[in-house]
């Protein structure tokens, strides 16, 4: 990696993961820098989402899963974290926005409440989170309305708001625009760049243009292996690996 000076948000060492007999990730080692956008790209089934979901231990619902290697966040192995504390520190945005069946206000208040934020700080934190996710002006007069009445793009920004309201250090995004139209996508991309000033962002995307537009670093994965990781500029214009070159030039995928 080029910029060794930047500090490391997520340190992945020899990380392998299997679902039963199926080896999905093979000895992946990478360092994800602090307060940058790192994109994970690669063809479907390459393991990029699986890797992302390793970071906040989302695979624990599946009891067939086995791991090897280590992932450290804040110099602490993720399995030494208490899982709820880890997930507060490492937020996640999913492919489709899924608002809870609650009001816009309560969608954000919920995470704050279960994580023990003081009751009297909640309104202030909700306004901040909505402002940071560029949603405040659109929803400030209807905070008590069901969140499901928002448009898809607004719902996704609400999901981002409820994640950053908890003040995480890292935000994982699993193809956050795949269910959105181009205009909503543009807004989310704008937001991602903005958020990178305060948060470390790891973005899984199948859209190479998106990676080029928003990511500082890009990692290319293929068949469960990390092929190459570098600055986005390097990956797309001067890839070192033949496989990376073929993929970013659209020869397969």
């Amino acid at each position: 990696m080029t910029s060794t000076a930047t500090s490391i948000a997520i340190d992945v060492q020899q990380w392998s993961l299997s679902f039963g007999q199926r080896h999905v990730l093979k000895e992946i080692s990478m360092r994800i820098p602090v307060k940058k956008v790192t994109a994970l790209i690669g063809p479907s089934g390459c393991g990029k989402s699986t890797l992302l979901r390793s970071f906040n231990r989302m695979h624990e619902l599946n009891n067939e899963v086995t791991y090897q290697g280590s992932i450290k966040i804040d110099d602490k192995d993720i399995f030494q974290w208490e899982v709820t504390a880890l997930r507060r520190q490492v937020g996640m945005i999913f492919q489709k926005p899924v608002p809870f069946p609650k009001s816009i206000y309560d969608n954000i208040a919920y995470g704050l409440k279960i994580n023990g934020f003081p009751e009297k700080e909640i309104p202030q934190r909700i306004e901040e989170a909505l402002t940071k996710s560029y949603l405040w002006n659109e929803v400030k007069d209807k905070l008590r309305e069901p969140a499901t009445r928002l448009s898809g793009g607004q719902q996704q920004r609400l999901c981002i708001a409820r994640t950053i309201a908890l003040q995480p250090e890292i935000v994982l995004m699993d193809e956050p625009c795949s269910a959105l139209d181009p205009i909503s996508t543009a807004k989310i991309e704008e937001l991602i760049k903005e958020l990178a000033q305060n948060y470390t962002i790891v973005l899984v995307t199948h859209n190479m243009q998106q990676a080029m537009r928003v990511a500082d670093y890009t990692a290319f994965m293929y068949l469960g292996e990390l092929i190459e990781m570098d600055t986005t500029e390097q990956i797309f214009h001067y890839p070192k690996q033949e496989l990376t070159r073929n993929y970013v030039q659209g020869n397969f995928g």
Partner: protein
Amino acid sequence: MKKSQTQFAEAFSKGLLLACALVVALLLISLTAYLLLRGGKVLSWSFVTSIPSEGMTRGGILTPIIGTVTLTLITALVSLPIGIAAAVYLSEYASNNRLTQITRAAIRNLAGVPSIIFGLFGLALFVQGLGLGSSLLAAGFTLGLLSLPYIITTTEEAIRAIPQLMRESALALGATRWEVTRDIILPSAIPGIATGAILSLARAAGETAPILFTGATFYLSGNSVGLLDEFMALPYHLYMLVTQHQAIEKVQPIAFGTACVLLLIVLVLNLVAMRIRKKYIKNYQV
């Protein structure tokens, strides 16, 4: 040629399906009309607010109404907590192993057991085994058991309909499994759970066989309800009047009136279920 054939097939299948739907609707309408025609005369406010008198040939049906309502309440108190908890365990916590599969199969099969068998089981376990005697409590427990498989199955279906992403979204915010279940899963599943629960209770309220040996009696003077006393219930009252009463001419209108009231209670319960569903869908579009 080909085109007109397709059109004919289309019209034919549509007509056939429509006819089937109409048959069902007609059945319900004619059933209701017949009951109203035969029993409508006796229906009045005093019919539902006065107790049976003169050997049940006169008076109203307040006693069996009270019996059926309290019985249904006990049934709900027994079956809802256990049923919902069991469904939550099966859908959210149980791993998909042999024990879970056997449990689930057992629950499905329990739904197919004839209700008279539940009556015999209730007689053996509650009336005699636990010494509750022939009583409201024993009958309520028996109907509770009868309702369990339906409540578990419909609750499980309602919970399964919630997208996995909803659970993951809550977990990703640092919620524990229990917090996800309590705050996200159960509230989202309420329309489905309520509908299933009310339909099962409506069915239980109309059951005769399970309460036959566990607590229902054909006649009570007065309308007090004790948990350990026998009680009158609408379906059993109906059965009694139609088959066991010697003054058949006199009691027949009362029997049809009773049927109308029973049907009305079940209808009201169903309407409540529909309303709950609509209200939640309107508010949350879940």
